[in-house]
């Protein structure tokens, strides 16, 4: 069974600085998707970034980028130029496309506080 681990329950960063959130996963699959989701306080959870395992190039979405290390089964999220609106809980997630169910396996989450 697949597992996703986020070892940092809480992190903080100063506004405008860069922060990296860690995620590791365990799977025997070769093809899979990885995601980072953001859950702001009292707001709906939304997708931040998505990575397909067969793509070697790291995904980037504006200030958000990932460091995908397939051999190490590591998938970290880097937030550049942190903004107060980045304060949220961040979840790393794994999906096996071959299951055709769309099920995501989530990590425990990392609460990020951006300080002014």
């Amino acid at each position, binding site marked *: 069974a697949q597992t*996703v681990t*986020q070892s940092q*329950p809480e992190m903080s960063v100063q506004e405008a600085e860069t922060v990296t959130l860690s995620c590791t996963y365990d799977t025997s699959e070769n093809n899979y*998707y990885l*995601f980072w*989701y953001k859950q702001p306080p009292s707001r*709906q*959870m*939304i*997708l931040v970034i*998505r990575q397909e395992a067969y793509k070697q190039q790291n995904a980037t979405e504006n200030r958000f980028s990932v460091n995908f290390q397939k051999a190490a089964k590591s998938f970290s999220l880097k937030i550049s130029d942190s903004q107060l609106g980045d304060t949220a809980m961040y*979840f790393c997630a794994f*999906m096996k*496309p071959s299951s*055709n*169910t*769309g*099920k*995501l*396996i*989530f*990590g*425990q*989450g990392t609460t990020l506080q951006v300080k002014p």
Partner: protein
Amino acid sequence: SQTIHQWPATLVQPVGSPLSLECTVEGTSNPNLYWYRQAAGRGLQLLFYSVGIGQISSEVPQNLSASRPQDRQFILSSKKLLLSDSGFYLCAWSRIFTGELFFGEGSRLTVL
């Protein structure tokens, strides 16, 4: 555009009482639907998922059940709530081939 709504947003129920949380999706057809529970320090736990009307898969044996009476309606139920059922429940639908999940606003359940 697609939207997802779930209700009620907050619920306080006594132990042993029934539960019904509802979720509806608009703007898409035949979505995959999911119920997750979020507990502090434990991330999101998948409870049920459905790939079509009347098709429910349970991920965790427990006191809860789910039903999908219509294509875009997903209901989470319990006949008798336990204290351990307290938590934040999230409904979601997905674009299956991209893996992106779209979440509802969540329902916070407190069982006393």
